[in-house]
């Protein structure tokens, strides 16, 4: 066997170490009309709308950037443009994102839809349509997703005003120095602060809506069973079914008890987190991110501070990074413990397993309370560090000793107990094995993330693929399971708890070494200004990749665009596919296995 070496002297082939650089270069040589984003501080490749599908499929099929993680709408009102930002990643090569940006006319924004090629784009494109009115041509079901169908206007457009609008940005001038308390509702809701459609008359309002459009999405044409006279029934599960983890609704078309088509309906908890974020200053957003996925607030904060730190260019002191990993991994364990407990609830083991899980979670959550001041709404991380050092003692013992007992003794013991208690339980296995199967290719195509993706045999973890914080200094495995059913999604959470314990066991000595070291870079500031540009901070949250797209003008104190790539919302795209062909009772188990939190789905 001979090894041939190529030496071409005329045209040296450039050697790329970074897959993103390589893909960008190849993309540009293939499509010379692509240009870099010309605005200073912004990164990405500008794609003309008519070439988007071509470029995206080339990127996916030829260059291996097959994971369409995030779609962000953006209103560039200064240039009278509407923009869509696509973040694509390579599952095989890891690394950063190839960012595609498409700009179109603001008055009549039309962009070709990527949903036919990437089913994972479905909900995200609907969200961009909902918030900005961007028409995605070729989308199979382009309707509002978070707001109700009758809503007038597109709330994230820069010229839209909410009913109790005060000022463009916080802080509001009416608070100081001449503040006089008022309640928002004291201002007459029928006053000039409310927007109504032209010619709208409250007495003529038609409250009867048959929701034809929602049901149109699930209409199925299928031959009935020969010899039997069957009829397909459309059933609403929810809103507020006890085991749907919040106010969530599924419109299901049934043939007998078998599911033919399922469509999630959401937005009942919608509060336009992103617009609140654009009114807020950068630091004011940190406590709001806790309220996205309130079961893993530390991870939510982590993604956001990583994103804004990229924008600001701040270095984080060593001890602060270790403290961040400590709380992020503890929170991951707490979240997975909760998820397992409530998955068992959904399967039908009412309350007892969930109760044991909650008892363990309490050991973590109460430590967070002593550390950060709140059980769930931590508000702990800051740009350039963390707010507090470890408390000196907790539960009548030194905090470090408490943590060591928890991490080296209590939690490993508890994982063992879960395994004895549930993993080999025949009822659990019968209810979950082979249910809600999602293949690896589908998991990527549907842009699922976190345990849902990894249970389908795709070992993709942001902590390894695109390391942030100090995860590249730590020794841990990316948990992966191969069957993609409910049982594997249960097992992978236990695997991830084990890996998190492994990480924590490595973090504890580092915390001992860095005792007394600074935990914050520089002087704490409440009015942070950033150099202009955009940045995308992502972190591996327990439910999947949490991403924050933050764009700001030069020396701005408020983000111009603040978008959250929320993992449960996008994981729900695959729910319909997972539930197809299963029974009604299985849907509850499948939904439980995705582990959604409505605070983050509806935002």
């Amino acid at each position, binding site marked *: 066997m001979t090894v041939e070496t190529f030496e071409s002297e005329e045209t040296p082939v450039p050697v790329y170490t970074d897959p993103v650089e390589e893909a960008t270069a190849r993309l540009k040589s293939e499509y010379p009309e692509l240009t870099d984003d010309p605005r200073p501080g912004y990164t990405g490749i500008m794609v003309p709308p008519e070439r988007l599908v071509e470029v995206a499929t080339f990127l996916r099929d030829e260059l291996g950037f097959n994971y369409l993680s995030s779609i962000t709408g953006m209103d560039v009102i200064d240039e009278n443009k509407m923009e869509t930002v696509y973040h694509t990643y390579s599952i095989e090569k890891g690394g950063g994102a190839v960012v595609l940006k498409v700009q179109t006319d603001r008055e009549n924004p039309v962009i070709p839809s990527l949903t036919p090629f990437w089913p994972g784009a479905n909900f995200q494109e609907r969200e961009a349509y909902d918030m900005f009115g961007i028409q995605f041509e070729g989308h199979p079901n382009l309707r509002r997703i978070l707001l109700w169908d009758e809503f007038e206007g597109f709330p994230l457009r820069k010229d839209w005003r909410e009913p109790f609008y*005060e000022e463009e940005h*916080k*802080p*509001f001038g*009416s*608070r*100081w*120095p*001449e*503040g*006089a*308390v008022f*309640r928002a509702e004291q201002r007459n809701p029928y006053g000039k602060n409310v927007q109504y459609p032209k010619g709208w008359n409250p007495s003529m309002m038609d409250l009867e809506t048959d929701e034809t459009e929602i049901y149109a999405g699930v209409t199925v044409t299928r031959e009935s069973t020969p010899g039997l006279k069957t009829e397909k029934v459309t059933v609403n599960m929810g809103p507020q079914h006890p085991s749907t983890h919040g106010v969530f609704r599924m419109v299901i078309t049934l043939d007998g008890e078998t599911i033919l088509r399922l469509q999630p309906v959401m937005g009942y908890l919608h509060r336009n987190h992103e617009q609140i974020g654009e009114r807020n200053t950068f*630091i*004011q957003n*940190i*406590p709001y991110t806790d309220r996205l996925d309130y079961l893993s607030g530390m991870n939510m904060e982590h993604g956001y501070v990583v994103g804004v730190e990229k924008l600001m260019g701040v270095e984080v002191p060593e001890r602060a990074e270790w403290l961040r990993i400590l709380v992020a991994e503890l929170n991951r364990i707490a979240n997975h413990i909760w998820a397992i407990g409530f998955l068992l609830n959904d399967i039908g083991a009412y309350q*007892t397993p969930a109760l*044991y899980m909650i*008892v*363990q979670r*309490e*050991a973590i959550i*109460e430590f967070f*309370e*002593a*550390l*950060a*001041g*709140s059980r769930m*709404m931590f*508000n702990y991380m*800051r740009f350039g*560090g963390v*707010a*507090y*050092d470890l*408390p*000196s003692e907790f*539960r*009548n013992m030194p905090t470090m000793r408490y943590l060591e*007992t*928890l991490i080296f003794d*209590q939690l490993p013991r508890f994982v063992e*107990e879960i395994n004895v*208690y*549930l993993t*080999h*339980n*025949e*009822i*659990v296995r019968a209810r979950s094995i082979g249910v809600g199967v999602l293949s690896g290719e589908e998991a990527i195509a549907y842009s699922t993330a976190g345990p849902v993706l990894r249970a389908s045999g795709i070992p993709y973890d942001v902590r390894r693929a695109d390391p942030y914080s100090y995860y590249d200094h730590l020794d841990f495995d990316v948990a992966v399971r191969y069957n993609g059913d409910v049982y594997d999604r249960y097992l992978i959470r236990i695997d991830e708890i084990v890996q998190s314990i492994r990480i924590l066991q490595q973090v504890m000595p580092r915390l001992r070494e860095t005792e007394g070291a*600074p*935990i*914050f870079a*520089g*002087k*704490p500031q*409440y*009015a942070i200004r950033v150099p202009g540009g955009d940045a995308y901070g992502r972190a591996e949250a327990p439910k999947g990749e949490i991403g924050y797209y933050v764009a700001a003008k030069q020396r701005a104190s408020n983000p111009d665009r603040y978008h959250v790539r929320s993992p449960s919302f996008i994981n729900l795209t695959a729910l319909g596919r997972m539930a197809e062909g299963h029974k009604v009772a299985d849907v509850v188990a499948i939904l439980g296995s995705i582990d959604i939190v409505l605070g983050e789905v509806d935002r």
Partner: protein
Amino acid sequence: MYGLGIVKGMAVTFKHMIETYLDDIRWIGRGGRYWNPDALEVRQNILGSRGTVTINYPEEKLPVPERFRFVPFLVTDDPPPGQSWGHDWCTSCGICAKVCPPQCIWIERGKQPNGRPKPEPEQFWIDIDICMNCGFCAEFCPFDAIKMDHDYELASYDRSAAHIHDKARLSKPLSYWREIAPRKAAAEAAAREMAEASKGKRRSKDDGADQPTLPEEHLQQLYYRGSGY
């Protein structure tokens, strides 16, 4: 064997059930396991307790940690003997109102007779329906004049008036803060003292090479390990 998994699982449940009674028996001679502050301390610590961990609220209450955050209050000096009102620490600089994420703080700055601003709030309101208990006001207050309270039982029958706390309702003496957060209050006092002492020094001597630092026990209690002072 089919069913063995269930049997083993049930054994775990059974173990938990037995443990509940074992721990109850263990506490018989020591005043019982419930409605007993000593037992409460152990019971809520899952590292040391077994069996039931629940608390009989509101008869029993969990103590909250010093850093616990609830609706803020304003710190005043302890009232001098014979008076009911101490001097406000707040200078109405407005940082808390500016940093507040949901903008629930309204401050009316005091005015001197000649119309110039007085470093004292004329009025101070917090709408506790809006307050999200994030603690930024306490964190960024340069005078330690606003602190997060530990009193979380604020339910009332009327939300229109009772939920807007005015200055009289918000003001609490320093001794109250010392009582609910003794170590944090001591650390803050030490940090203020040191900042005051080093202020003069920094003016006379430019290098900050041997800046005095607080002892570790104080630094651990403070926001950003005291780098805000």
